[in-house]
């Protein structure tokens, strides 16, 4: 229940230029933190591998010089050094920029978590916005983090760091907790750039239920040949919420779970539950309940759940 309530709290509505209200779900803070951790791990892993490769090449340069660094070819050494510095800079900024400017609007980490960035106004995602939000991230997280780490190392060596450590920690905490103090879970970079992070659902089209089994055969079971027909009074017991729960059960659930649902429905409508033909019963019930609710819907009558 709490998960559903939390998802409800994160849902926003985006109006497309066609005037269609499109629901979007804001990404959870945990998901975003996870995506960032994945990205940082990918960047560090990549840079580490690249630098090890460079070191290996540099080691090759020393060969045949009796391991005397001063006699190694200087130009080549320098080239490797430059490559190291530049690759660090380019990877750090380029990784986020190029990927978030791409058509998916998400880095690898975000894609794994299933989220993407979008413009808060519902308009186009401008390249400037992507650049702004990524530049701000440094000040929010990495500068204070590095500062705190440096101060910790200093203090472990016996230097007095005084209030500075607390200031740095406060800075770090301020930005880290920023998303918790606004409704849309924006971090400082999102505010400056005018973006937010939303879930990017990728749903497959599921099969139509009303063309399968007993639902298609006007309630007739393939196993027993019995026909299940429900009257208006029996169908009036449930509403849309129960219908959609039943739909989920029919798509995913195990036979044992279906048997339990079957028993519950039979008790509710006053039927005598049999055994062995639960699926056909539920398919028939689903199809007829949906037909009734959709019929009412066309006349503007909606029944949200069994209590209404």
């Amino acid at each position: 229940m709490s998960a559903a309530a939390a998802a409800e709290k994160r849902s926003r509505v985006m109006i497309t230029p066609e005037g269609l209200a499109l629901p979007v779900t804001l990404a959870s803070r945990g998901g975003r933190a996870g995506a960032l951790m994945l990205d940082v791990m990918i960047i560090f892993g990549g840079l580490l591998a690249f630098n090890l490769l460079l070191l290996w090449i540099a080691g090759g340069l020393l060969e045949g010089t009796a391991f005397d660094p001063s006699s190694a070819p200087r130009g080549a050494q320098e080239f490797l050094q430059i490559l190291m510095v530049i690759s660090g800079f380019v990877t750090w900024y380029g990784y986020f920029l190029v990927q978030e400017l791409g058509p998916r609007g998400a880095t690898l980490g975000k894609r794994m978590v299933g989220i993407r960035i979008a413009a808060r106004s519902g308009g186009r995602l401008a390249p400037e916005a992507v650049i702004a939000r990524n530049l701000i991230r440094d000040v929010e997280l990495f500068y204070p983090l590095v500062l705190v780490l440096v101060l910790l190392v200093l203090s472990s060596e016996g230097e007095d760091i005084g209030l500075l450590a607390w200031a740095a920690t406060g800075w770090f905490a301020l930005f880290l907790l920023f998303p918790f103090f606004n409704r849309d879970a924006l971090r400082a970079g999102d505010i400056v750039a005018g973006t937010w992070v939303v879930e990017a659902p990728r749903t497959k089209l599921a099969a139509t239920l009303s063309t399968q089994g007993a639902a298609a055969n006007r309630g007739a079971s393939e196993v027993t040949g019995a026909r299940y027909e429900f009257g208006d009074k029996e169908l009036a017991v449930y509403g849309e919420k129960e219908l959609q729960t039943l739909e989920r059960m029919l798509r995913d659930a195990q036979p044992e779970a279906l048997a339990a649902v079957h028993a519950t429905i039979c008790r509710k409508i006053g039927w005598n539950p049999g055994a062995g033909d639960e699926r056909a019963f539920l398919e028939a019930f689903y199809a007829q309940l949906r037909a009734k609710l959709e019929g009412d819907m066309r006349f503007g009558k909606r029944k949200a759940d069994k209590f209404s």
Partner: protein
Amino acid sequence: MKTPVLSSWFGRGEIAAPPDIASATLRSDRFRLEREGEWRRLEAIVAQMEKGGLRRIADDDLVALPALYRTAASSLAVARETSLDSATLAYLEALVQRAWFQVYGPPRGFGGWLRDFVLGGWSRAVRAIWLDICIALFVMVAGAIVGWLLVAQDEAWYYRLVPSGLADTRVPGASREELLASLATEESAAGLASFAAQLFSNNSGVCILAFALGFAFGIPSLLLMVHNMAMLGAILWLFSGQGLTLELAAWLSVHGTTEIFGILLSGAAGLHIGRSMAFPGQRAVLTAASEAGQRGAVVMVGVVIMMIVAAILEAFPRQLVDGTGPRFLIGGSMLAFWLAYFFLYRPVRLPEDSA
């Protein structure tokens, strides 16, 4: 919380042929089955676009994309009112959202944006923050004067303002010869390239910091600039004491006209954000912040480019070119180039660039 669909990453799943439309007993399912083919076609096109393979998409598909998108959008609107099939609704919502991101996606990729940026976008953004540039310039000049005055009053300030790495021979009490030697050239270019790379990485880090700190109403950006310029003022005081002001200015101007201009711009961009948030005018604070942030981001990309130029100038010409005249010539022409590019270069803006 739903689990990410990993299977969608690897290959496309088998798509079963849709069942016969007539077999559907429900009206809403018949509605769905009639349109399902178009939805699936849209999904395939969108998946292609997300992979970035715009060129591999058949022309027919590209032409059909807007129509398919509108069909899906209207299907969603109808389905919300007539269907209770939550799986279909969820699919349509996800599909329309994905298609929306592609149809109304970024008008150009990174390459196109970069072209527009160099051909006018950059100088437009710089001109847009002219007021902040004036304020930042004033603050920087004031910072340099403060640095000079502080050190002139008490030499102990010198050691506080100038980091010890820079102050190896350049300390109060150094002789004229020592100071002159620190301005001299290197004999060969060896080692200078990696020096340039280090400088670039370091300086652009400082600039990005100055920009990003603008978020706190611009005050940290200003403090950072004052600190940097106070250091410059202190060094100026040191060299002028030995009558070397002109030599130092020439030595600094080679890269300084580019680098200090870059720092000025990044500080101004940070200040721009802070100022828009403190005084948003008629706009909402968040709108004002994001408009200023996007303008500032354009300036910042330019600053990174300026830092590359400055680092190359600092490492090679400054250390290799000797003599006050040639040094001033390089520095002065760089300054003239930047000023002309930012304030005189005003290409006519194409109407469709306004996005």
